[in-house]
């Protein structure tokens, strides 16, 4: 594209702020989206698809909470309830939270942060999106033909004997698995092969470290989910007797198979959230991230350790005592890097200049909620207490504090952070802060009660419950409605910003990573120049430019490649 480099060096990339040609209007028509190879459009399509799944899963959740308002039947039968919590779990996990951050923000931001024009394998990227759609439609088919009542874990022999549509749901999850594998594969290759001049491994934005660690897990763990679900399908369709005791199989072996993937999967969910956190905390504290290398290495550490702890889901399953001991010990090891991250984030805020903009509010709630989520993990990792707490609402509360209080909150933070970049529009800060507050309050009310319920012995996946638990359940349900209200408001102002929102500057927050060096929304080719990366957290290199309402580099040439590319 050498001929295109006519713009005076120095204001390159940014000088066209507000110019019309960007990735959103580059091609017209639905097909120009569905078959695009542009990582930005694929990211946006993922965003739409995944937020719809989140909405669907959320509806299931609200129905569940409503049913639990009273013991016994409130609005649905036991069988409907069992299907409902299965669908809530399956949709939220396989359709929403696992692809969640990497497929949406990752797809959009990762190449931009690398100053690249696209991910390394754009066709594969599109393929994985189509795989997602295919998997999703399998899940939908399953829902239509009578849904599944096995719980999202598909434990045998229940899943091999129940009369519900298990096969289509498992095939759906199977296909979604490959979508996830290809995304991860793509990101690994991209980060390895497409880093710009000056971006050594330890000059990568921590977001990339997080996504990279996530990709490692996606690539190494997900194939095992594939074979597990395949075996489950074979078990149901042919009766291969690997997992079904009636045919000489071993149901506990199934749990090993399942958790070998599904525990690392927990880190597929949380690592990208931590990745976002590092960006938010640094940017909105107006300070260089603290302990860069420790945060970076802790991501890798978490990724690798996550493969050594799956047995802690099986302490009461009939797993041998020795195995229990080993897994309990290993489980604690994974707590350390997470703690290190939290402390480094706190240290980053020290002597900063903290702006409480919406993304930062989410970052703060993350610290608050993830602290609870992480610490309650200690109760479950230690053997004797887990025996009592396993399969109770304590566990439900714990993983919601991590998955929702952690991942979803950080995801929302990320969406608010990159929204101006993605759509070139600002949203209403005031409304954003209100919904952040409602979500925070509603969430705590919903799930903290569940800790208490659980430690008192309220088992999970219960349609009916003993009288003594009624107050907890009702408090929890009230909270869930506050939570839902928060999300409705968010949907409102975000959609509003798309049409009415004021135009966003190229760099509204004053962050130093490369994605802010191009226009908002980015041009079709991302950057007009080959980029050069410096310290991604050197915020002093930027100054506020009132005329633009955003930040600009004091020395714009510092991010331009010294040598033009081969082209």
């Amino acid at each position, binding site marked *: 594209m050498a001929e295109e480099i006519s713009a005076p060096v120095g204001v390159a990339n940014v000088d066209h702020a507000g110019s019309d040609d960007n990735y959103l209007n580059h091609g017209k028509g639905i097909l120009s989206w569905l078959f695009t190879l542009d990582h930005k459009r694929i990211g946006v399509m993922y965003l739409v698809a995944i937020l719809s799944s989140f909405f669907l899963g959320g509806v299931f959740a609200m129905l569940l909470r409503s049913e639990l308002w009273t013991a016994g039947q409130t609005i649905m039968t036991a069988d409907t309830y069992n299907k409902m919590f299965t669908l809530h779990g399956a949709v939220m996990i396989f359709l929403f939270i696992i692809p969640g951050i990497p497929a949406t923000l990752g797809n959009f931001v990762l190449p931009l942060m690398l100053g690249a024009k696209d991910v390394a394998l754009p066709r594969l990227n599109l393929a994985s999106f189509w795989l997602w759609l295919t998997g999703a439609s399998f899940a939908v088919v399953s829902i239509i033909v009578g849904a599944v009542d096995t719980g999202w874990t598909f434990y045998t022999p229940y899943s091999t004997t129940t009369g519900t549509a298990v096969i289509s749901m498992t095939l759906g999850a199977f296909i979604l698995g490959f979508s996830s594998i290809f995304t991860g594969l793509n990101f690994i290759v991209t980060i390895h092969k497409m880093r710009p001049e000056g971006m050594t491994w330890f000059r990568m934005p921590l977001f990339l470290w997080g996504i990279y660690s996530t990709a490692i897990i996606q690539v190494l763990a997900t194939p095992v989910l594939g074979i597990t679900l395949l075996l489950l399908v074979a078990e149901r369709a042919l009766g291969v007797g690997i997992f079904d005791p009636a045919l000489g199989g071993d149901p506990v072996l199934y749990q090993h198979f399942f958790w*070998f993937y599904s525990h690392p999967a927990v880190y597929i969910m949380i690592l990208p959230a931590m990745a976002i956190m590092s960006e938010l905390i640094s940017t909105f504290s107006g300070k260089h991230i603290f302990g860069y290398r420790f945060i970076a290495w802790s991501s890798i550490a978490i990724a690798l350790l996550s493969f050594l702890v799956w047995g802690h889901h099986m302490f009461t399953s009939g797993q041998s005592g020795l195995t229990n001991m080993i897994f309990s010990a290993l489980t604690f090891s994974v707590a350390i890097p997470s703690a290190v991250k939290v402390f480094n984030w706190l240290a980053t805020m020290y002597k900063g200049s903290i702006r409480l903009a919406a993304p930062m509010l989410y970052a703060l709630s993350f610290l608050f909620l993830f602290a609870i989520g992480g610490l309650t993990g200690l109760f479950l990792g230690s053997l004797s207490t887990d025996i009592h707490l396993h399969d109770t609402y304590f566990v439900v509360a714990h993983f919601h504090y991590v998955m929702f209080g952690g991942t979803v909150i950080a995801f929302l933070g990320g969406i608010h952070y990159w929204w101006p970049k993605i759509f070139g529009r600002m949203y209403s800060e005031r409304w954003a802060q209100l919904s952040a507050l409602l979500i925070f309050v509603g969430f705590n009310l919903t799930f903290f009660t569940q800790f208490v319920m659980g430690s008192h012995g309220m088992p999970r996946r219960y349609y009916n419950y003993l009288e003594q638990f009624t107050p907890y359940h009702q408090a929890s349900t009230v909270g869930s409605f506050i939570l839902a209200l928060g999300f409705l408001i968010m949907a409102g102002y975000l959609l509003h910003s798309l049409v009415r929102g004021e135009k966003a500057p190229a760099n509204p927050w004053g962050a130093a990573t490369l994605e802010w060096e191009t226009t908002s929304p980015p041009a079709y080719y991302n950057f007009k120049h080959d980029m050069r990366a410096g310290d991604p957290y050197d915020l002093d290199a930027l100054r506020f430019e009132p005329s633009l309402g955003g930040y600009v580099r004091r020395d714009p040439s510092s991010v331009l490649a010294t040598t033009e590319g081969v082209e």
Partner: protein
Amino acid sequence: MNEHGDSFVHIASVKLLLVVWIALMFGTWLTVSASTVDLGFLNIWVGLAIATGKAVLVALYYMHLRWDKPFNALVFLGAFFFLFLFIGFAMMDTAHYQPDLIPGYSPGMVGGS
């Protein structure tokens, strides 16, 4: 291959390909004949050793791993590492809880107990 603007692309000589092929054939013959001698518990390990030898040949020469970027080899070996991890834990645990299982339990089978 200058077209590739790189020096590393390795072209295996026909000689090399054939030598490896002969080695693999020999390996196959060896495995089969080894399996006919009764070495007790050793049989499986001998067999695995030979098979692994063959696998290494294929990976190093037919798959060019020997001349490839080390990271590609690392990726491949990494996969095996995690596989062994899985096999190891699964075998350890199942071996420990075998005594709890009901011997030959398979009520779904014809004539199963």
